[in-house]
């Protein structure tokens, strides 16, 4: 049974996948899907309740919440995908070098990464944003850098384990140079795990972006970001609960979706689970 067939049998993962596709869809087609310009204000309609004109209501500036949630998916996905790419590529490079070089270089690199890992995640991201400045791009970089150490450790661990396997030893004995060893034998075995990790990381990246924006350190107004929307909506939580709740739900759904897909992928790609349910 191939991976896709195993994935397909996991109903929850399929639900997650459907939600991810929906998110990607709304992010791509936002200008056509959103009923209004997400930055169009109509102060007189502030905090309008969900209804015929504004399906999910309006925020404190009379902006359409549905349109902002749809455009917010763009920010969430762009930050998610790009920061995952930064984390994966950065982590892969560092992990492979550390795992392959071994000795003192490995020790130095790993201690450095462990120092980064010792920081609470929000503190590290805050420090990076403080150094780079706010905005979508810098938020993406901050989230990406935050992901690098964990990826590097996973990759290094895999490289260390694979280096000792018999088939890699055999290839080396036959005179295969390190680049070929990497390309032919080691990377193909690391990539599935990385895909799984990358998917799960997306969920965390979306959450961290929302957290940074909630704190006012991420995406800047008037760009629609779910975290920013929750942040401004919390002041009116008692009088107009929908302003914060709707983007809050969007964050929840997105994070859940990527977690479900990630879990499904892990089960589908994990060789040890092959043949099981």
């Amino acid at each position, binding site marked *: 049974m191939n991976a896709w067939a195993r994935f397909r049998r996991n109903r929850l993962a399929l639900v997650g996948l459907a939600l991810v596709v929906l998110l990607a869809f709304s992010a791509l087609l936002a200008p056509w899907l959103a009923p209004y310009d997400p*930055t*169009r*204000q109509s*102060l*007189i309609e*502030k905090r309008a309740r969900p209804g015929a004109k504004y399906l999910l209501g309006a925020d*404190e*500036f*009379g902006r359409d919440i549905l349109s902002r949630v749809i455009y917010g998916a763009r920010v969430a996905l762009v930050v998610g995908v790009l920061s995952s790419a930064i984390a994966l590529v950065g982590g892969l490079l560092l992990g492979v070098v550390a795992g392959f070089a071994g000795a003192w270089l490995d020790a130095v690199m790993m201690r450095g990464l462990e120092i980064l890992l010792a920081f609470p995640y929000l503190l590290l991201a805050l420090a990076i944003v403080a150094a780079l400045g*706010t905005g979508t791009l810098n938020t993406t970089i901050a989230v990406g850098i935050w992901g690098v150490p964990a990826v590097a450790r996973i990759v290094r661990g895999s490289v260390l384990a694979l280096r000792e396997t018999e088939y890699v030893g055999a290839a080396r004995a036959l005179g295969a140079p390190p680049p070929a060893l990497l390309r032919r034998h080691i990377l193909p075995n690391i990539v599935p795990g990385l895909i799984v990790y990358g998917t799960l990381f997306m969920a965390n990246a979306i959450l961290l972006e929302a957290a940074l924006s909630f704190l*006012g350190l991420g995406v*800047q*107004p*008037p760009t629609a970001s779910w975290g920013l929307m929750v942040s*401004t909506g*919390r*002041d*009116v*939580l*008692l*009088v*107009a609960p929908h302003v914060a709740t709707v983007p809050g739900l969007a964050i929840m759904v997105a994070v859940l979706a990527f977690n479900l897909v990630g879990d499904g992928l892990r089960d589908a790609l994990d060789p040890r689970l092959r043949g099981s349910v």
Partner: protein
Amino acid sequence: MRSRVSRMLIGLLVLGLAVTLVPPVDAQKRGGTLTIVRPTDPVSLDPNLETTAPGAWVYFNMLEGLLTLDEKMQVKPALATSYEVMSPTKVRFKLRPGVKFHDGTPFNAAAVKFTFDRALKGSPPARWASLAGSLEGAEVVDDLTVDIVTREPYGPILRTLAMYCMGMVSPTAVQKMGADFSRAPVGTGPFKFVEWKTNTHVIIERNPDYWGDKALVDRVIFKVVPEEGARMIALQTGDADMVLFPSPAQLPALRKDPKFTVHETTGIRVVFAGLHAGQPPLDDVRVRQALLHAVDRKAILDNIMEGSAGPARGVLAPGVFGYKDMQLERLYPFDRARAKALLGQAGWMPGPDGVMTKGGQRLSLSWLAARGRYPKDGEITEAIQAMFKEVGVEAKVQILEWAAVFQQVRGATLNHHMFTLGWVTSNADADYSLYALFHSKQVPPTGWNTSRYANPKVDALVEQARRSLNQTEREKLYGEVQDIIAKEMVWIPVYTTKEIIAARAAVKGFNIHPVEYNLTLSKTWLEK
């Protein structure tokens, strides 16, 4: 017929007078603890180190100045009983006899001199020293007579001495306590210090030896509750008697509820979007005027401030000495067509993406703002940003923490076109604002001319008004200054604060003051 109407009118008038003359039926009660929740803890309780509200709310009840400002913004005697102008740079004060500091030290001319020496000649000088104009110090004449001296004639002297941060401190306590004084100040006021637990609470209690009417409540506890929502819940559940900075969105419901009283009055802080007049494209007055026309200030007032602020009628708030209505509604009505026309006159034409361009450059303004420093500051910034878009002006807003905004706006060079700021005329005298904000020599880092505005005529007028001791003349000069500024606007004034405090209905006798810092609690009592 006419006589009946006039008789009726007279009757009404008499009735009206009678209503105002009848003393309140509630009899004042003594005792109890008044609990106040507010968002932030003081930096210090020493006016030398703390001039912002969180500290002032507390120390204003413990330390008294020579003079004070009442709720109608009139200067009233406090520790001084009378004054006499001796020369253009010297005012002689007679001090109240028999007054003692909380530690038993007698209050006298030496204490006044000690307080001013400590503030003005200390190193560093007091935080308020730069706001006190040319105030130089005090000279002892005899035990209960003191001369206040200025370096040059200084018109606003009385109002400056009546500022909330001019409280007299006990010389013995300062000498004995050293740096600890800032955590447990000793003054002459109706309350004295009990305890300060950082970021938890400050407690003060009635001063039984107070020279005037003694405070009615036994104790006042100032608690720190940073979250607006949590403060409102504390009021609802009875954990707090009084909330400073209540949530505007919850006020309508609170006003209707007989269990609560919303105390409000027109404040004297103007919150505005500042324009950097020293750098293109805002050095062109037509562009600045266009921006004023582009903003629907009424919509902001109605829908964002929701009744918790009043319209800004100029760069000063009504109630400030020297204030003149700038007639902004007449000069700069909300009119997008006029805004675009003015931009056109200045050479800006609509570009392909709707943003105005001139010589290949887009009309894009970078804008610094904080969120939460002033009521709804982030929100008004976002609203104006959207209004600018409608007339083809792009605003790139950066919402940063207050300290970062402050540093850049007050820094020697400002690399942004706009900034959201508020300004309180703390001594209620136009000099305090018009000099510091619009004199060309007051450009940061020296002063507060954050718009980098320069007009020699304005410089001459504010200097002349500062030196004059003739209040009628000063008022006229400030009127002229405001007329000039109105034509060359370097601000978009957005609103004038209302001071709003929500309290349980059982809190009686409290009078809210137009100056946020002047939180007077000595006349407040609790019904139960």
